[in-house]
């Protein structure tokens, strides 16, 4: 373990306002992907200590520093910032369907919710929470949707396997 590399990775992440891919970090730090991931794990551990007010988060293969949720009010107060807006119920429901059933078509989503999904899909795309994954090989070749890294970040999920499990109580 080279402390300079650890410090370098910390410096790099400190300057990034959005998740940075491990490959980018590895390239700049002149480390292998595995080494980089190991160093980043050390950083994550370090910042998990209670004396720290920030955490290093992993979303898919990307890393970003964020402030701990309990200090949100203070941060907002310091910067006189408005509280961030949460998504509408329609957006959340649609997003839940996409998250759990991806790749999924618009028609499939509409079937489940019983309403048109076009506008909601546009909104979710605009916020970069969903993306087109491709087209389904069926009649009409409909677009199939999936969630993005921004989605993981917004819900603080390190990857899709962290999605809450559902119990089907039939």
């Amino acid at each position: 373990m080279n402390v300079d590399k650890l410090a370098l990775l910390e410096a790099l992440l400190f300057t990034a306002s959005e998740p940075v891919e491990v490959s980018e970090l590895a390239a700049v730090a002149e480390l292998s992907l595995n080494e980089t991931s190991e160093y980043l794990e050390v950083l994550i551990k370090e910042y998990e200590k209670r004396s720290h007010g920030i955490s290093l988060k992993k979303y898919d293969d990307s890393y970003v520093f964020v402030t701990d949720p309990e200090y949100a009010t203070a941060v907002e107060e310091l910067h006189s910032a408005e509280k961030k807006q949460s998504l509408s119920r329609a957006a959340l429901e649609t997003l839940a369907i996409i998250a759990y059933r991806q790749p999924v078509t618009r028609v499939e989503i509409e079937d489940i919710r019983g309403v048109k999904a076009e506008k909601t899909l546009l909104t979710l795309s605009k916020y970069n929470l969903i993306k087109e994954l491709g087209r389904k090989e069926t009649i009409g070749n409909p677009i199939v949707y999936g969630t993005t890294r921004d989605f993981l970040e917004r819900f603080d999920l390190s990857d899709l396997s962290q999605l809450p499990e559902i119990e089907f109580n039939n």
Partner: protein
Amino acid sequence: MELEYEINLDNFQGPLELLYQLIKKNKIEISEISLARITEQYLAYLKELQTFNLDLASEFMVIAAELIEIKAGYLLPSSSTGKKEKDEKDLVQRLRNYQIYKELSTILQEYEEKALNQYNLPSVYKENFQQEEKLIIDYNLEDLVKAYKQSLASRPENKTADNMKIAVEKIDYISEENINVQEKTEEIIGLFKNKSSLYFNNLLKNQSNHQEIVVTLLSILELTRIKRLKIAQEKLFSTIKIVLR
């Protein structure tokens, strides 16, 4: 019919949600019996909704029809049980599915709420660094040649093989020949060695660039002025002929 709650219709995203909320507010399990019981309430809301928005109401109609059918099935106990059960099962299954995603979205909302309290670092650094644009050329010579051919082919007045040859020949020249009117005049006169007339458009077409075209025009005008050439057009818009005098 017991309507304990005022339900604002604008809040309902769709028929399934309305049905789901009614079941929840009546504190009954999603089941075939509750569906039959809930039908009247659903229809009551639908009636109210219709007066607001017919377009939207139509989406609710399908479910309403299903509910009525299920209820009717109960009123007529002898009617085909198989179909009745299937209808119920389908609707109940849809509702259960919907309920799952509804619950999931509630969990996601909690996640979101917590995550929204995480603040990212300010994005000051990126702005401070110049974004350098680097050109990646993943073309090879073949592509370049193809592009050249395409560009020549797209030239509307230049589709004949002759003209392409001119273009190709010109590859080798390094310094631009300066064509003056006098040289061009002699060249044009030379063209009449074997014939008495030439077509104006052919003459122009064989010029390789703008400069030559201009010089050619000037030469023709000059030759006409000194009465070496006669310009003739047999009828309006027909080909212009140049005749040596």
